[in-house]
């Protein structure tokens, strides 16, 4: 069972909202000083899904990541968790892209990697929250996609994927090769062990540029984007919070009930 997992480095979504800044001149988010980037959390669930398959039946896991200024210790977490090899897509030509041009570059890298049974992606990245790249890669490769998975099993050229629905679950069987996007209902990703971290140091890391992929420059980065970002800005929040106080927490609780009754909310 050979898997490919696509991961993205993002600004830490757990950083305090008060530290969030946008540079309106460039329409870009400014990472908070001193806050390290992380692997997009849903991508760690995607790595975990691949590792569980590998635990059960062996095989190889290749990690792909596209981005600028990738911090090696961040993306290498995938190797420390147990993946086998890391490919970094780093080139100015990939810059300024949208979901379309990003999925295009990743799909070329996957073709170059060759044979695989399953591709895993997180259900959406914690920065742009679009949830398009996974399905887009599958479409560009012409393989089926199953989104928002909470469990993945594979055997005999097929995968059985449990999906999360708003009011329940469903199980879908899909022919391989296929792409699966993974949600947090899969269960917590494993932490890298010390042994895993040591082993990761010896695992291969390969950097590919646009020219290594034989990419059409017109479909890459800004040039290949289908959408245009007009403006990125922080929403104005005008809420004023009325704090209801009391001598004791119990008194404050009772007074809150009275206040809500007065406001005709109860």
């Amino acid at each position, binding site marked *: 069972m050979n898997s490919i997992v696509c991961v993205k480095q993002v600004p830490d*979504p*757990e950083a305090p909202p*008060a530290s969030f800044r946008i540079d309106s001149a460039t329409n870009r988010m400014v990472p908070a000083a001193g806050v390290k980037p992380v692997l997009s959390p849903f991508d760690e669930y995607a790595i975990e899904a691949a590792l569980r398959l590998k635990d059960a039946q062996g095989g190889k896991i290749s990690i792909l990541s596209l981005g600028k200024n990738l911090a090696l210790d961040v993306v290498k977490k995938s190797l420390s968790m147990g993946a086998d090899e890391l490919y970094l897509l780093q080139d100015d030509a990939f810059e300024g892209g*949208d*979901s*379309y041009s990003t*999925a295009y570059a990743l799909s070329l890298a996957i073709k170059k990697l060759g044979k695989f049974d399953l591709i895993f992606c997180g259900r959406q990245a*914690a920065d*742009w*929250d*679009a949830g*398009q790249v*996974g*399905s*887009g890669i*599958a*479409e560009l490769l012409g393989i*089926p*996609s*199953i989104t*928002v998975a909470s469990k993945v099993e594979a055997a005999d050229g097929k995968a059985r994927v449990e999906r*999360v*629905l*708003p009011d*329940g*679950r*469903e*199980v*879908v*069987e*899909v*022919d391989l090769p*296929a792409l699966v996007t993974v949600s*947090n*209902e899969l269960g917590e990703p494993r932490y890298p062990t010390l042994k895993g971290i040591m082993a990761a140091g010896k695992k291969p890391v390969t950097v590919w540029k646009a020219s290594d992929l034989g990419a059409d420059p017109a479909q890459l980065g800004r040039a290949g984007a*289908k*959408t*245009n*970002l*007009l403006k*990125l*800005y*922080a*929403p104005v929040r005008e*809420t004023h*919070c009325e*704090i*209801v106080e009391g001598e*004791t*927490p*119990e*008194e*404050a*609780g*009772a007074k*809150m009930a*009275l206040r809500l*009754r007065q*406001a005709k909310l*109860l």
Partner: protein
Amino acid sequence: MANSGIIIFGELGAGRLSSITLELLGAGRKLADALGQELAAIFLGHPVDPVVREAIAFGADKVYTIDNPALQEYLTEPSVAALEAACRQLSPEVLLLGQTAVGRDMAPRLAFRLGTGLAMDCVHLEVQADSRLLVATRPVYGGNALAEMTCPSARPQMATVRAKSQEALPRDDSRTGEVIPLSVSLPSSRSRLVERVRQEAAGVKLEDAEIIIAGGRGIGSAEGFQTLEELARLLSGAVGTTRAAVDANWRPSSDQIGLTGKIVAPTLYVAIAISGASQHLAGCSGSKNIVAINKDPDANIFKAAQYGVVGDYRKVLPAFLNKVKELLETS
């Protein structure tokens, strides 16, 4: 031929047009009027329920249907192929879907198939005055920022729309329009539905509740939710939660409110021991009134709340519950 017309992808629930479909019709009507073009709704199924005609009363000029055995249960490939065929026949200028389980699965594949751009989970849509382009606004960075996006040249311009972000139009049965079946041929699917399990919510459904009592990581245990359950029952409300509490297995994922859970907009949202992470606020910021109970006076939830108590919920909530009981008994 130039592209023209707005098409919304309609979904049914319990034999009726789903609320997101009514909201899409409301949003689509505004765009159609701004562009001076037609608004159509499209429904897939087998058979397609005749109730889809009601889309006309809620703003559509036309209703298209695709009835095919492969569309009886939702699967990605036949549904994407059906909408692709419809777009190639009808050449719409704009295609809108709901940010629903089906919409978020289908829209990206369809956009890539059609070679066009897509803005997901939009909360605002308008036509730019000079360019006549659709400007789609979507929350990004877990709701810390808003992005305004356009799709300058590829067509249709596509967006999925967040539940409860758009106003439905009042029903107007005097509106007239045609229901037009489309005939398409669909490829066989490489995926098959093995089973689908729906959890029936006991009591009031979260999405329909006027009062929601929500608890987060700070509740500390599954048992801690018992007081919240009691309060919800007393107020005919529903209990909601955050991703952290779902990940800790204190609550089922169907109770999750937030970016990747349910989007709710009740009259009263009581957030108990919830810090107010942006991705949670994305699911409840449409609430008319938010009440926060949290022991941390600096918790982000107080920035979104209208009323707050700073204190340990273990002490605040039982007293709040008792007072509510007393008020309800004496009224």
